[in-house]
């Protein structure tokens, strides 16, 4: 009897990094210093997928080539790596000018059984601001690593605090730094919207954050806001347990007026704050939004030379859901293939699939969860293309299939070798307008 063919688990053209990629989560915390406790090359590789080949984002303070690393070598594999790690940490305190040091342990030291936890605890007891997180690549991808690192910082650095809550103060858990090409711009737009609605927003990553001060402020917030289908949920659950802090989970990142306005109203209602300021802000933003919407309507209504009708999309759950919702529900583009490629944990998949099924009144999407790029490209290739030019919202790995079907191409996922991205967003009121510019610029570029 023929052997039962097992489901392929290999990956071609990967669309994420591994857990040690969370060094980029740490470097995105202002003045935090990651210490990559792993082989030489591990941190460098993840930086390529997450920053270089992902919009050429550059690096924060102690990111990129500045990341201290134990660079585990043959000697450490044979005799243990604790000693080398200790001298690396000790030197890092003196050489690297940081406020918080986070040791991330990768595959090799995990496998040889180095007791990193004990080393880091010893330093912490001496008064050093240092945290340890498990980030072995065989335990998961960079999204898993991100959650692991954030939770480690909360447990080991923010610590057990009893404090009054500040009404209207929100901890915002949205994009994964660097992994989301637009993370900087996305946090800025979400902050702008929430502040416009009357909230104070505690941002933990990037230029909108105050670094460790923001992290120490976490327990003070009235609640945690998770704007993502699944990444960050386990963080919010930890915070609920630890600081008796409720959380609001909004799986669909808001893109465009309809979704953003609903988003604001939901957050206001959850917080129980007065809605006057929020409604005034909504009114002003809505007016501006439709001012531009009206202008692009001329183009959409009478451009002779071909507009896209169908879209094919593949990226992480957060981006795919947010952008699909906007295009299918508000712009009226037809979903031809919708793929989530971030290895969403099984327990979250049903709820996410349900969001896609209810994407719009008259439209339902059967989302597929696929990580292997070869399979994704094949699915794209075999999609129903209809008459018009297809619009691909995907990664730079997908260029072959885009060329084959003479498609329009807007990079939205990791990796992204085709754009230099600094401060850009496709979400909220303003980001949606930028996304429309981007899509229809591709149309006129031909």
């Amino acid at each position, binding site marked *: 009897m023929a052997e039962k063919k097992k489901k*392929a*688990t*290999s*990956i*071609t*053209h*990967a669309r*994420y*990094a*591994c857990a*040690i*990629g969370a060094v980029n989560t740490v470097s995105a915390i202002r003045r935090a210093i990651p210490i*990559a406790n792993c*082989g*030489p*090359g591990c941190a*460098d*590789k*993840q*930086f*390529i*997928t*997450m920053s*270089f*080949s992902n919009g050429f984002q550059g690096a924060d*303070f102690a990111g*990129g*080539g*500045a*990341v*201290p690393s*134990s*660079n*585990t070598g*043959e000697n450490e*594999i044979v005799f243990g790596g604790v000693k080398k790690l200790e*001298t*690396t940490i*000790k*030197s*890092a*305190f*003196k*050489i*690297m*000018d940081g406020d918080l040091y986070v040791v991330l342990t990768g*595959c*090799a030291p995990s*496998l040889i059984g180095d007791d990193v936890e004990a080393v880091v605890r010893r330093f912490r007891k*001496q*008064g*050093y601001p240092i945290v340890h997180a498990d980030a*072995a*690549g065989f335990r998961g991808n960079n999204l898993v690593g991100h959650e692991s690192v954030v939770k480690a910082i909360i447990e080991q650095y923010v610590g057990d605090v009893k404090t009054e809550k500040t009404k209207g103060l929100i901890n915002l858990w949205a994009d994964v730094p660097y992994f989301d090409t637009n993370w900087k711009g996305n946090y800025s737009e979400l902050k702008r919207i929430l502040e416009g609605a009357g909230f104070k927003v505690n941002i933990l990553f990037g230029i909108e954050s105050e670094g460790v001060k923001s992290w120490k402020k976490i327990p003070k917030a009235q609640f945690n806001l998770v704007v993502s289908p699944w990444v960050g949920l386990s963080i919010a659950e930890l915070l609920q347990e630890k600081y008796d802090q409720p959380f609001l989970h909004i799986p669909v990142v808001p893109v465009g007026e309809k979704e953003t306005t609903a988003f604001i109203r939901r957050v206001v209602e959850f917080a129980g704050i007065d809605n006057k300021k929020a409604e005034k802000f909504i009114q002003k933003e809505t007016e501006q939004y439709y001012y531009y919407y009206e202008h692009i309507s001329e183009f959409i209504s009478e451009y002779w030379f071909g507009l896209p009708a169908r879209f094919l999309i593949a990226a992480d759950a957060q981006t795919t859901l947010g952008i699909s919702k906007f295009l299918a529900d508000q712009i009226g583009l037809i979903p031809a293939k919708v793929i989530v490629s971030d290895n969403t944990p099984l327990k979250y998949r049903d709820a996410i699939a349900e969001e896609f099924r209810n994407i719009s009144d008259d439209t339902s999407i059967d989302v597929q969860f696929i*990580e292997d790029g*070869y399979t994704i490209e094949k699915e794209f290739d075999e999609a129903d293309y209809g008459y018009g030019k297809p619009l691909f919202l995907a990664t*730079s*790995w997908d260029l*072959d299939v885009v060329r084959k079907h003479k498609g329009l191409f807007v990079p939205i996922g990791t990796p992204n*070798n085709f754009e230099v991205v600094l401060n850009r967003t496709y979400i909220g009121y303003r980001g949606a307008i930028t996304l429309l510019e981007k899509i229809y610029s591709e149309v006129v570029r031909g």
Partner: protein
Amino acid sequence: MAAKRIDLNLPTVESRELRLGSIISWNGSTEELLKESNYEGRSEKKKGCCGSKGEGCKLCELNLPFSQQTMCCHAIIETQVTNITDCVLVEHSPIGCSARLPRINITYNQTLARRGKEPQMIRVLSTNLQENDMVFGATAKLERTVREAYERYSPKAIFISLACTTAIIGEDIISAANELQDELGIPVIPLECEGFRSKHWSTGFDIAQHAVLRSIVRKNPKKRQNDLINIFALYGSDYFTPLLKPLGLRVNYIIDGASYDEIAQASEAVATTTFCHTLGSYFAAALEEHFNVPQIHSPMPYGFKGTDAWLREIAKVTGKEDIIEDYIRSEHERVLPRINELREQLKGMKGYVATGSAYAHAIIEVIRELGVQVDGSLVFHHDPVYDSGDPKENSLKHLTETYGDIPDYTVSKTQQFQLFGLLKRVSPDFIIIRHNAIAPVSIRMGIPSLPMGDEHMAVGYDGMIRVGEAILEILSRRKFAKTLKEHVKLPYTEWWLSQDDPFIIAKHPEIIEEAPDRFTKKTKKRSVK
């Protein structure tokens, strides 16, 4: 008969530190390093460095207690074997080991364009190992993935790479490759390139070359192609064709961008040479020793002296001695006027070179030809000898004897924290770099960088002109760099930035204890000076 230096019967090649005595941490002048390297003495030994554990010829290396993230030999083999147009790589590792591929895909497609070939995404499958695999082993997954690679792409050969994890848990990729080779009827080639295997990534080049020599290069070729010359290269533009066509030679670029057959025919070529001894020496020496394809034993083709000597050696090996002197003379005459203009335009400029080892020697030669002052340079490792052991390939000697000493010469593996002090000491107007992690510090210090992405740019007589023009363009970017410098802060403490010697923590590790401690009250009061 002398024992062969290279043993192609071994399934894998020894690391550079074992084979050549390579080091990654050193500081001094090139004259001192030349003396300490003792190229000739070392080359007489059977295996480069001491056969036994004798300390006699071990290069003194500075042992740093602190390091920053860098590169591994696994990343290097990716840059090699994924760039063969009709082969596939299966990476036997967790997914993170594949995370450099999006960048490698950029260089691959650039190479294809430069070789006049169709664009194509690199073809790599990861076995995508999980925690369970670490416990129970993953050979079944490997076999399945190799078959999948075969079915999907019908490649001419499949490479399998080992990684830190799979080496630690003892995955036997050699046996698996042998069995799959029998099953599939194409070469299935194991690469033992786990990241911790060597302290320097360049061992990865040797691992890829060793594998290709054992499994792809045609053994006992029936014919010779007397006009074909192997150029061991990376991704560089085709500047070798215009340089060698007047001698009636066609170039065969290996490995990047080549097809299986182009690599296989390497044993039919009339000679082998390279743009960089660090990169190409193992392949060239092995082809000479095992396939009777002569290696061009000469300095590398940079600057007037190097290019002259290299061309003369090629002419000698290929029987073109009758025309070579006229060719060299006319080339000098052709390029000299523009080079003299560039020398005038670059007068007073100071440059710094931070690249791979022998390549740095080459680039310094070129910019010194252009009259640029070079007081310091950084290489990512140093090989005291190359595999052939031939003193004519002693590139450090050629540099130092032809163009003079480099007083502040540093071996450091892309360590940003050291670069600050090094650049402060020589304050150059620009820096020439390869590899990531170096230029970001330089530009934050107000020094613009020229990334030598097209590594053939500096080759030959025209190379001097190309580099000179590029430097003039880069100098204009000082505006950007100087503005940046005024608005950024480096992630290093004042204490560290005030150190004059970037190797102080290797020479006096106790200084770490004595440095100001911002977090505890443990700081010793003794002066740190």
